[in-house]
């Protein structure tokens, strides 16, 4: 019997578009997100590019004869209370702050996705144990644990990154678990089981990829959060060990001269603000771009 074809747009039509392509096209229409991507890219290039040509010692060199100088040609951002160049310190500080922000967010995403997926998929007592643990961590003020951990484990960049990452995965975990709970009952997951897929395959190929949208959004916002946490820690004098510059520790140092030498606080402060804003706008844009049900 002849099977009538439904009208299709098929057979090598022009719109052969990959999913990443579609997402990029949608993101491009989100003005604010696009501008943010650009600004963040510039910040990253400068923060990681300049240190290739300039030694970190230049950023830490003090010059007691040039204390608290206002912005000038020699020092475009001015100097701090022991005569260090604020422009260079902001750049080197940006490298540390951005690295901590990105890596901590990545770590929290990895932990959150693994625990959330396991809890949601397995269910039962394992789910209970994991989620009560998550709740417990959520209910303790993060900054408090961070202060204790920073005291115990020291203050290197790596340790601060790990500590921040290990304490900010809980929201991602809850998002993933909630998504997995509904996804595992969906018929395509059942179809995979009917085909003989193992649990590991169903999770990795069918369930986790479908939680990507909310996870990417949460993780993007997590970058901003991690930068702020690092800044708070440094501001309290518990962040990365001086003399290594971070935006937070520069702010900390500027406390005494907010009125007499505002530029000391202004540049690192405005960069924290700009970076976190950019990251949040990108997160917003991705949220819209990744929505599979949105039109185009």
């Amino acid at each position, binding site marked *: 019997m002849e099977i009538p074809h439904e009208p299709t747009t098929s057979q090598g039509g022009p719109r052969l578009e990959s999913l990443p392509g579609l997402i990029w096209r949608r993101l491009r229409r989100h003005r604010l997100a696009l501008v943010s991507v650009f600004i963040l890219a510039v910040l990253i290039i400068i923060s990681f590019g300049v240190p290739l040509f300039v030694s970190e010692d230049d950023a830490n060199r003090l010059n007691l004869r040039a204390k608290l100088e206002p912005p000038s040609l020699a020092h475009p951002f001015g100097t701090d209370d022991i005569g260090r160049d604020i422009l260079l310190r902001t750049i080197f500080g940006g490298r540390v702050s951005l690295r901590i922000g990105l890596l901590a967010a990545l770590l929290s995403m990895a932990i959150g996705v693994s625990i959330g997926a396991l809890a949601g998929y397995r269910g039962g007592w394992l789910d209970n144990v994991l989620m009560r643990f998550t709740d417990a961590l959520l209910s303790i003020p993060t900054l408090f644990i961070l202060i204790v951990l920073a005291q115990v484990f020291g203050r290197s960049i790596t340790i601060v990154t790990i500590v921040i990452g290990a304490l900010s995965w809980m929201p991602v975990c809850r998002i993933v678990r909630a998504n997995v709970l509904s996804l595992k009952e969906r*018929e395509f997951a059942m179809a995979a089981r009917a085909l003989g897929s193992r649990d590991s395959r169903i999770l990795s*190929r069918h369930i986790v990829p*479908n939680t990507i949208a909310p996870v990417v959004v949460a993780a993007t916002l997590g970058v901003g959060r991690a930068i702020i946490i690092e800044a708070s820690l440094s501001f309290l004098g518990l962040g990365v060990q001086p003399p290594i510059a971070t935006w937070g520790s520069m702010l900390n140092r500027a406390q005494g001269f907010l009125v007499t030498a505002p530029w000391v606080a202004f540049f690192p402060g405005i960069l924290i603000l700009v970076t976190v804003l950019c990251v949040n706008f990108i997160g917003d844009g991705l949220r819209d771009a990744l929505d599979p049900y949105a039109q185009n």
Partner: protein
Amino acid sequence: MSLSTPTANAVTTEGNGELLKVRNLRKYFPIRGGIFSRVVANVKAVEDVSFEIGRGEVVGLVGESGSGKTTAGRAILRLIEPTSGEILFEGTDIAKLPKSQLREYRKEMQIIFQDPFASLNPRMTVGDIIGEALQIHNLARGKAREERVADLLEKTGLAAGHMRRYPHEFSGGQRQRIGIARALAVDPQFIVADEPVSALDVSIQAQVVNLLQDLKEELGLTLLFIAHDLGVVEYISNRVIVMYLGKIMEVAPAKELYANPVHPYTEALLSAVPIPDPTLDRERIILEGDIPSPINPPSGCVFRTRCPIAIEDCRHIDPPLEEVGPGHLKACIRRP
């Protein structure tokens, strides 16, 4: 619940022997409550169902929403674990197989789902969706896999070029074809088609039913075709099983069932099938009320609360499935 003898001898129209034999299948979903999560009640979705399907046969499974037909179909494939009962596939009891051995049988038994939008992973290309089974069972890889996927797409009325696209680019009918191609990828002997056309437009329904019919002929498939509408089932089935509230009400060869329904529930279902002739006058049997709760089904005959001919005895007697003609079984004490 006395359901031992009669169905065992049910005639299978194709006569090539049994492929699947379901014995006393039950599926209860526990309802937990209280602080200790004790089981406080059970939803009796499938209650003591037995039937068999012959090789190459198409068996329709009908009943309204909540009759347990989808649960039965999924329990047979062990997509949900049956509470008790035997599922003999070529003599092997699948219900008791450990997971590792069950995977081998996955190749023989497949399922087509009702909702073509929920049944395809939106993040995978059509080629990956259809080719996944080939990968899992190591049936074909690389070029051979691509060829097989192209072949399956063409067999189901799509084009080979579709394999690089994502499900959201297709219409409901096309998606259902993709679902069918996925089920066929492992060369199964038996397919549970779980309301494969209920979610489609009427104009597309016929196309998909025809496709299944053609594939069945071509590949010698055996089908369990689940539907809530007797009209669709009439066309494709050799035999029809009518379920209500988890139990079998009537089983008969398709022609016989439509010409000569015995059970009052079947009569009511048949009277609801639309006839494309507005001048034709006929008596519609309107069932009153809703299907009762499967948590606490009526005593005796489960249909008695809505049955137009129920008597006091129906409250006490659980009607056994009895033979009324060759291959024709009914569970009703009011009909001889």
